[in-house]
């Protein structure tokens, strides 16, 4: 899985959520708008019904006035007249109300003008009819009624009223349809929106599941890779160990086979030396022979100056050969010892470090006294490790500290210890001559030494110590400045076992 792909997928998911949010907002806004619309439409529907009612109420009042007037005309009873007057009084407010209600509609305004005109005419007629009846001229009133009937005033009122009702019914149809449409729109908008949200949610779930699957796959791959890595490491470790063993065997065989010719070289060089002595003795004897006389017999015959020079050169040459052979032998022995150490199996055991170091220090007490050195042992952590290896490590380091003190300065050697994360850390510090930082790596190399070469040594100790520390699963380092003392730090596992070594190598 590439980083690019991962970023793109994350971006896609964010986009998806954003889209969901937008859709939800749109649905909400749309719903609010459409619900408002629907309410508006409903209001108009109600308004239409109200207008219709008002028209009917107006027409009813007109009829009541009419019937009241007729009743009075026929019977002249005051009750009919009261009824008629009540109805007439109600007509004008009802008409006013109706006019107010339909103020928004020009078509209805026209109708209502006709209606008002007809009603006004009729109201006038009513008033005159009542007057005539009151004056006791009922026939004039009856004539007025028939005039009104023939002139169509009542019909005009009826037709204007029904025109208004028709118009309102038309509006009712229209507004109901509008309200229906708004509601349908709101419902479908909500439906579509919900559907969209569901779809987005499904896509999200799918994406999440897909990324979870990809993650699981990646995890599985990682696990596999880890397992493979471990196998590879094991393999490499085995290879390295084999190579290391091979080198050890090689070094062992080579150093042995080198030794064999060295025995001859040394042997015959020594023989030659003896031979040389014999030859020069004879030369001395021969040069002293008096003419014709027997050779002089003497244990030591002094040689001529020239012969003496020859003898000295001869001895010098042999001396160089012998010292070189001796040196070579020491180097071969050192390699042999190192390979032997490298092959030794460690035996871990619990070590009381303080007692252990004290024993080493007491074995070096003589050298320490000679060098006027004091050795301080601070509290040390106990560890489980190989006793022999530790002995070689510490005695080499303490011995070095004593060996390379500054002449004329009382030595002070300090051994400190502490623990950290399962490791014991030991510092062996001195106030000796120190080591140039340039030589810090070199001093750990086999047969290499640093500083003034005024002490005997092969350059093996530190190489050996470091090899041992590594085999014990530890590390070692030095911190030092020239003329400012040295501190060698060894880090060793507190509990050594064979697996420490495997893990380390």
């Amino acid at each position, binding site marked *: 899985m590439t980083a690019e792909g991962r970023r793109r997928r994350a971006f896609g998911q964010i986009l998806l959520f954003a889209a969901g949010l937008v859709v939800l907002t749109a649905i909400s806004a749309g719903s609010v708008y459409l619900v408002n619309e629907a309410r508006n439409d409903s209001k108009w529907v109600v308004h239409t019904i109200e207008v219709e009612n008002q028209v009917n109420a107006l027409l009813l009042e007109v009829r009541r006035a009419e019937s009241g007037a007729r009743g009075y005309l026929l019977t002249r009873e005051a009750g009919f007249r009261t009824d008629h007057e009540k109805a007439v009084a109600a007509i004008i407010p009802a008409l006013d109300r109706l006019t107010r209600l339909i103020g928004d509609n020009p078509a209805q305004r026209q109708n209502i003008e006709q209606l008002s005109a007809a009603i006004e005419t009729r109201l006038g007629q009513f008033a005159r009819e009542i007057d005539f009846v009151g004056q006791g001229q009922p026939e004039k009133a009856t004539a007025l009624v028939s005039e009104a009937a023939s002139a169509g005033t009542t019909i005009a009122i009826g037709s204007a009223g029904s025109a208004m009702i028709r118009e309102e019914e038309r509006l009712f149809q229209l507004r109901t349809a509008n309200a229906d449409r708004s509601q349908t729109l709101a419902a479908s908008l909500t439906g579509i929106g919900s559907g969209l949200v569901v779809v987005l949610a499904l896509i999200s779930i799918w994406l999440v599941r897909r990324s979870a699957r990809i993650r699981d796959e990646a995890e599985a791959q990682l696990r596999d890779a880890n397992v493979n890595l471990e196998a590879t490491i094991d393999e490499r470790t085995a290879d390295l160990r084999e190579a290391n063993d091979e080198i050890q065997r090689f070094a062992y065989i080579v150093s*042995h*086979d080198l*030794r*064999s010719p060295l*025995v*001859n070289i040394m*042997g015959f060089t020594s*023989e030659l030396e003896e031979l040389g002595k014999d030859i020069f003795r004879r030369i001395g004897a021969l040069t002293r022979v008096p003419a014709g006389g027997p050779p002089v017999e003497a244990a030591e015959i002094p040689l001529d100056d020239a012969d003496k020079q020859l003898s000295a050169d001869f001895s010098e040459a042999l001396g160089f050969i012998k010292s070189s052979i001796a040196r070579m*032998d020491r180097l071969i022995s050192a390699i042999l010892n190192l390979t032997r150490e490298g092959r030794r199996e460690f035996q871990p055991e619990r070590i009381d470090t303080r007692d252990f170091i004290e024993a080493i220090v007491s074995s070096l007490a003589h050298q320490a006294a000679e060098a006027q050195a004091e050795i301080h042992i601070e509290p040390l952590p106990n560890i489980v490790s190989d006793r022999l290896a530790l002995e070689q490590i510490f005695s080499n380091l303490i011995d070095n500290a004593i060996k390379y003190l500054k002449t004329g300065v009382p030595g002070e050697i300090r051994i400190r210890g502490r623990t950290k994360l399962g490791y014991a850390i030991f510092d062996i510090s001195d106030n000796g001559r120190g080591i140039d930082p340039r030589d810090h790596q070199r001093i750990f190399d086999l047969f290499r030494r640093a500083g003034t070469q005024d002490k005997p040594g092969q350059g093996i100790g530190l190489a050996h110590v470091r090899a041992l520390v590594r085999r014990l699963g530890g590390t070692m380092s030095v911190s030092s400045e020239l003329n400012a003392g040295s501190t060698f730090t060894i880090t060793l596992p507190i509990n050594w076992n064979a697996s420490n070594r495997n893990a380390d190598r």
Partner: protein
Amino acid sequence: MPVTIIMIEDDEGHARLIERNIRRSGVNNEILSFTNGNSAMKHLFGPDGTGLAQKGNALLILLDLNLPDMSGIDILKQIKENKYLKASPVVVLTTTDDSQEIKRCYELGCNVYITKPVNYENFANAIRQLGLFFSVIQVPPAAS
């Protein structure tokens, strides 16, 4: 019956140095030198390989472990397993100073194990000590 010293040593230089130092220590016994394992085996065990050829002979064997054709350990083993030869003292004289190897030789019945030192003083000294040992040791004749 004079004791014969059988020297099995592939390095002729070493053989010469050993012989010289043995002579210097005053041992004048016959020294038979073999430079490889096979010719020594042929001489010791005879053409039939039974060791019957050496019956009744007093032998002292000087053996190097690093031979070109066979391992000195094998020779030691066969000598010590042979009924005619097993009484003969065997001195292992070799460059190998591995403690495992030394232990193995003693287990197989070697009488003396000497590591050849490079230092000639020590070398000559060791051989002279050996010569001294030769002159005092009672070498029994090969069993009848």
